[in-house]
């Protein structure tokens, strides 16, 4: 039997102010936006200016996230680095593609080519920490973060690690926003992001980005936020199979469906997409509270990591602001014991991710 796994440190940078943990730093921003970009931290507090200038956004986020989450967990050393990024380093990929095309393959500077590899975040973290440990990057759409968690679970099971650094980063670039205008699947007009679930006929999603980091440990501390019970990811095209797999997932953890008292669903405001997800949740968990996260961070593959950042704070006893609930679906001051995060891909809807978290019993 696997020993419990604790989440001992958390950190997130999102389109809403949340740098200091404790849910949000201030009232949530309702101002209309056509895409949700992160509020950048003061990078110079964490990375020396000379290095910083050459560094791409994803690496910056990774290095800040690593320092902040290790500080939060009060750890000096880690023995595994696992990064999830569904889209990878789009900035540098675009930069190098543009350079190749603009200069007709001549006089190229390799910096953006080197940084374009999707493992550049995990590699840069290893360099910063001088950490020669296990180092992995998952780049599979929306279930990248869930695979990173599953890898972490297995590493603990294999018995060679005590402290894992696990992060999820995805970015949007100005070039993506420009490209977006060719495509009806993405929202172009500005809208209050917190209102996306209250429209009944939306057909496009708000692009977003975020960076979330966690310290997983096999040791409980006074500051542990929550327990990671289990994780699953799968690729199903048949809807009835999806419900069965979720049910089996809950049951294999010796829980009944009724014991799941909060579900974070990957709703993105696209009516048909949200309805499909809502049907699954209502069929399996008719009594549960439902929360959302993409109205805060926007649609992007690894957004479920931000859901986990919220969920573990909720489980640690912090009261969630009312805005996180889907269509205000909650009694006030709800204190959940078991949270399920149900994440689903947007453009191909068959990729699913499940994360099961538990309140720590004192």
């Amino acid at each position, binding site marked *: 039997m696997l020993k419990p796994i604790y989440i001992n440190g958390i950190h997130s940078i999102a389109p809403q102010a949340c740098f200091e943990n404790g849910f949000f730093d201030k009232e949530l921003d309702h101002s209309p936006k056509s895409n949700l970009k992160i509020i950048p931290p003061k990078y110079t507090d964490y990375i020396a200016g000379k290095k910083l200038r050459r560094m791409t956004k994803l690496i910056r986020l990774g290095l800040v996230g690593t320092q902040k989450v290790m500080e939060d967990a009060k750890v000096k050393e880690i023995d595994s*680095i696992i990064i999830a990024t*569904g*889209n*990878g380093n789009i900035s540098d*990929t675009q930069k*190098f*593609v543009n350079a*190749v*095309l603009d200069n*007709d*393959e*001549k006089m*190229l*500077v*390799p910096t953006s*080519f*080197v*940084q*374009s*590899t*999707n*493992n*550049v975040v*995990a*590699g*840069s973290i*290893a*360099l910063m920490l001088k*950490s*020669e*440990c*296990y*180092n*992995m*990057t*998952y*780049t*599979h*759409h929306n*279930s*990248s973060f869930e*695979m990173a968690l599953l*890898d972490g679970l*297995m590493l603990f*099971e*294999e018995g060679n690690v005590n402290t894992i650094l696990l992060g999820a980063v995805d970015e949007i670039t100005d070039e993506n926003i420009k*490209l977006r205008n*060719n*495509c009806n699947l993405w929202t172009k007009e500005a809208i209050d992001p917190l209102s996306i679930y209250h429209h009944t006929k939306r057909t496009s999603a708000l692009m977003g980005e975020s960076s979330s980091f966690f310290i997983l440990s096999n040791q409980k501390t006074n500051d542990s936020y929550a327990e990671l019970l289990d994780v*699953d*990811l*799968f*690729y*199903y*095209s048949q809807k009835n*199979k999806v419900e069965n797999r979720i049910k089996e997932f809950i049951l294999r953890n010796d829980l009944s469906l009724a014991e799941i008292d909060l579900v974070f669903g990957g709703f993105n405001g696209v009516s048909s997409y949200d309805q499909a997800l809502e049907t699954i949740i209502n069929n399996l968990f008719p009594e549960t509270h439902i929360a959302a996260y993409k109205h805060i961070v926007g649609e992007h593959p690894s957004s479920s990591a931000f859901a986990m950042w919220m969920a573990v704070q909720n489980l640690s006893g912090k009261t969630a602001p009312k805005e996180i609930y889907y269509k205000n679906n909650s009694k006030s001051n709800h204190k959940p014991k078991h949270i399920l995060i149900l994440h689903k891909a947007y*453009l*191909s809807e*068959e*990729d699913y991710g499940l994360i099961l978290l538990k309140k720590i019993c004192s």
Partner: protein
Amino acid sequence: MKRVFVTGMGAISAIGIGIEANTTSLREGKSGIKAIKNLDTIYRGKYSAAEIDLSNDELADLIPHFDKNKLHTRGQLLSLIAVNEALDDAKLNREETEDLTIITANTIAGMDITEKYYRDSKAELQYYFNRAHSSGETSRKIADYIKSNGLITTITTACSSSANAIILGSRLIRSGRAKRVLVGGSDPITKFSLNGFASLLIYDEHACKPFDKNRNGLNLGEAGAFLVLESEDVVGSKQSYGEVLGFSNRNEAYHATASSPEGKGARLCIQEALKNANLTPSQIDFVHAHGTATPNNDESELNALKHVFGNNIPPFCSTKSYIGHTLGAAGALNAIYTLLAMKQRFLFKNLNFNTPIEKDYIPIIQTKENVDINYALSNAFGFGGNNSSIIFSNSPKGGNNA
């Protein structure tokens, strides 16, 4: 902990379509590296690469029931050709592929499509960029093609990506989470990668010379390479190519692209793989090196081998001088060739070798037949300090051989 067996393999590279053709070329010392002919680049006719001489249309014709009208990338075509061969080879039936775990690896994914359509003003551009470019799209394409509903994922750790796919697949089986896993990788040759390595000044315009003192950089290659891994629980009396005995994934934490001259990352990785396989260095009969032929990699890798094996480095070679550096496919292709050497009892020679880096450190220069290889090491190293090593053991039969 469940034991892991390799029961099927498939490969397409510049030295052949299919395992048999690849084996023949290795035996005959036939390289696939030539002046670039197909890629639309200013280096066409000037630089060398290991291209597969088939257009995307011709590749698609090799895949039964493939829908050419649906968006696809060259990497996906190369993958599906190798996947079909590997699944046939492992003789998996429909029921067994239904919940097959699929782990693919790549480094540049749909870059061939991206660089072609990036400046296209049509609306479909966004579609191409979003869908084809994404790393995870190949795994989905495979899952759709074989109608599998299970765990699927994608790894990118630069040039060690598909070695890590084998490692993850093995760990899923060892833990009992999976019974059968399809693992592998692919990458096409693109202007993006060619110019990237050229701008780093590590691209040899002539055929590359791994482990030669006068080596001058790598050549790119394109390939698709896949393996079927099965748990001892289900393998029964099926013939296997070998057992995945141990592995390691380590980061060197030295430099973004270069390896440390002393090869610390590679050394840690090989040592940990030996420990994981419960073997001593002297038990290794063959080392299939990463050997990219860049001045930096080969020096570093050789120093790591010297450190681990002392004066008794087992016969070693690189096959990059046959197939080029196939990036996302490199780790899986290296593993496949390693298993072929074991199974068919031959050692292939390291092509284009003339002068040793250091006296006495000479790779295999003559093809040898009837060689017993009980344990072999396969290396894959990448940018970002990502190093991986896998050790295979020769076990002609599956679980019954225990």
